[in-house]
């Protein structure tokens, strides 16, 4: 394994974690979507680099799927949804972004410690990839937890999915059919969630999930 290949893989995976952090402190939905598109672009680059150094052609397809769907189609569609719902100015976070960033750092530290501990005798690239992928997954989860708006929760879910794809690309020998089915499941999840957003909006005039909670007769 040449040093430069490892360094670039490391750079791209680390970049993905960095973009995840950028998503956490975005206040506006449009900005959030742009950062999410950037996230998908970095993911596509990381996967393509893995395809290059592993000489696995089918990973190029994965990278292409990530680029087309996650960087272009889904952010574009979400843009349209936001415009049609007229919620482009609303953002509300449950806890302040500073605190969320601190929690995110803790999660990254945890996943690095954990992954480096338990994969001590495997391939260096796979180790780094897995540690970063777990960080991305945890950060996506953190984003879902700390946002109140349904659209930002969808974005959190999608970025979590990106972490899974990064992990899958790092682990050698994942069959193509699994990647394609993951890609399709993401697409279907996106469609279902999109439809749900409109249904929620029709019924409650908002996509703030607090309205759902109020509807169930609960107090916060």
């Amino acid at each position, binding site marked *: 394994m040449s040093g430069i290949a490892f360094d670039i893989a490391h750079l791209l995976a680390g970049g993905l974690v960095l973009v995840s952090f950028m998503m956490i402190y975005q206040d506006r939905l449009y900005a959030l979507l742009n950062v999410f598109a950037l996230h998908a672009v970095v993911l596509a680059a990381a996967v393509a680099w893995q395809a290059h150094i592993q000489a696995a052609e089918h990973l190029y397809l994965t990278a292409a799927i990530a680029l087309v769907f996650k960087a272009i189609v889904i952010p574009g569609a979400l843009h349209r949804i936001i415009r049609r719902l007229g919620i482009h100015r609303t953002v509300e976070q*449950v806890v302040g972004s500073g605190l969320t960033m601190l929690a995110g750092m803790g*999660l990254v530290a*945890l*996943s690095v*410690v*954990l992954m480096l*501990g*338990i994969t001590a005798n495997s391939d260096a690239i796979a180790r780094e990839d897995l540690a970063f992928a777990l960080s991305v997954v*945890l950060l996506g*989860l*953190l984003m*879902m*937890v700390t946002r*109140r708006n349904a659209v930002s929760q969808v974005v959190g879910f999608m970025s979590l999915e990106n972490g899974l794809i990064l992990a899958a690309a790092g682990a050698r020998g994942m069959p193509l059919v699994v990647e394609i089915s993951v890609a399709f499941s993401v697409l279907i999840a996106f469609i279902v969630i999109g439809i749900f957003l409109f249904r929620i909006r029709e019924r409650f005039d908002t996509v703030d*999930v*607090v309205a*759902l*909670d109020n509807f*169930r007769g*609960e107090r*916060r």
Partner: protein
Amino acid sequence: MVELAALSALSLVMLSLGAVAWGGGARISGLVYGLSALACLGPGAAGIAILGGVPPQMLTLPVGLPWIGAHLRLDALSAVFLILIAIGGAAASVYAIGYGRHESAPERVVPFFPAFIGAMTLVVLADDAFSFLVCWEVMSLLSWALVLAHHRAPEVRSAAYLYLVMAAFGTMALLLAFGLLAGGNGAYAFSAIRTASRPDSVAVAVLALVLVGAGSKAGLAPLHVWLPQAHPAAPSHVSALMSGVMTKVAVYAFIRVAFDLVGPLPWWISPALLMLGASTAVLGILNAMMADDMKRLLAYSTIENIGVIFAALGLALAFRANGMTAPAALALTAALFHAFNHMTFKSLLFMGAGAVLTATGRRDLDGLGGLIHRMPVTSVLTLIGVTAISALPPLNGFASEWLLFQSILLSPGLPQLGLQIIVPAAGGLLALAAALAAAAFVRLYGVGFLGRSRSDAARDAREVDRCMLVAMTGLGSLCVLAGIVPAFVLDALAPAVDQLTANRLPQQMAEPWLTLIPVAEARSTYNPLLVFAFIAIAASASALAMHRFGSRALRRGPAWDCGFPEPSPATQYGAASFAQPIRRVLGSQILRASETVDMPPPGDPRPARHRVTMHDVIWERLYLSVARGVVYVSARLNGLQFLTIRVYLSLVMGSLVGLLLAVALWH
């Protein structure tokens, strides 16, 4: 032979399916019961052949888990219990041909009945943990369905619910026990479990789990609470089968694991088992003494007999752990013999109670009385059962309890001081239980069958039909035969005892005049034939003398009414009055019985009242507090149902991070 037994079990299951296909109504109930009695002949014949000297046989069926299959094996121990199931099942089936005609909801009983017998047969045949547990659970569920036959009554529903909970709990304990037995490699075949070696701690844990699993099915205190509710709730032929046979299947499960599969056990678990059995016996019979419902009384008495059997098994374990094989063989023989005897007389008594229920529609003792005039055959047969269960010579109950006490008398030979003290103490408890059993059944028979009728229903009772009487006669003659010729039964049990303790009783049939000599002639002998002849001659001679010289002519006069000239039958001794002395002596502590007398002052016309309140201490202290704990925890956790989406996500994330942290710290 094992093929014959398996085929019979299969045909019983098919019979159930056929009954379902035919609608299971009253039209086919006689046919189904008749066929199921016939199908019981198969396992019986197979068991007799094995005890007659045919070597153990195995059979692997290509069903069940892949790569494992279902293993069946028929050895001497299985054969003993196979015969027991066959006799009990056949008798209950024949009885049900008649009893089923009066059934209000036959379609809820007929389809489950044959399969229940078939499942019990398969439990004793199973030779790997998987098939054992599956058959065990099928047996539990089918019996639960049978208990629930008269589901409109709320007490039946609550009894069935309690039974279901206890059965699930017991199966869980058995599942864990077999998991421990199989070890990390998952060797679930009994042959692999038998050869594996395991440390003492694992063996003791297995024994404790099996005690919970089998004990909850058999009715060992404190897991007995479901039994006096569920056994009476079922139709009487099912009660006979559950009390007489299914509890024996649980005893089989315990013997199979404790004596065969788990290997050597340390001696210090036997006193626990012994005291558990003895206190179960006393607790069961004390409750039976107080019960007013005939079938409930019989169910409590089942608990007593199970206690006796488990005490004998504990004694056998104590002897075996010390390498004293001959006394161990004696105690195990006593346990197996008592299990067989209990099947005969408890089935007989439940059938008698069912006959009374058919004839009068009542089973409360205070509504019966005088049945000996109305139902003479049932009364005589019940008298045989009552005498046998009270352990009176020359019937079979005496023979097995005598053997048990003979083995208790061998306890001074044990090397441990603790056992030397505890075994005679347990013997004292068992003797108390035996005496109380006699009192309880004198009460049952005296109040229920003798005296004057306490209700119109009892006065107008009619003798039941032939099928029921034939089944009861068969079991009654078994009680008499096994009582007079116990030597034959003991010799038949010898191969099974030999298989488990590597020793056996000396051959008893070889002794002259059918004398029983369990240890040595100088020590103790029992000649049932002689006792029988003595009782018969002395009783007929005194009856003759009394009628010849005491009362020359037959006179009819009013029955003695304790000096009260009131003609109402309510002035007779009742069930509660009969129980009062023992309730006052023993019940005040164990049952927390208290009496209040409400005596109106002179001039007040309202009647005086005498009230008795009793508490089931185990139920109130143990079960109700567990139930309260479960309700408390569920009420706390109920809040989890109504959280917001974000909080659910946070819970998911929190648990994920927590698990990751645990992994990180662990590394």
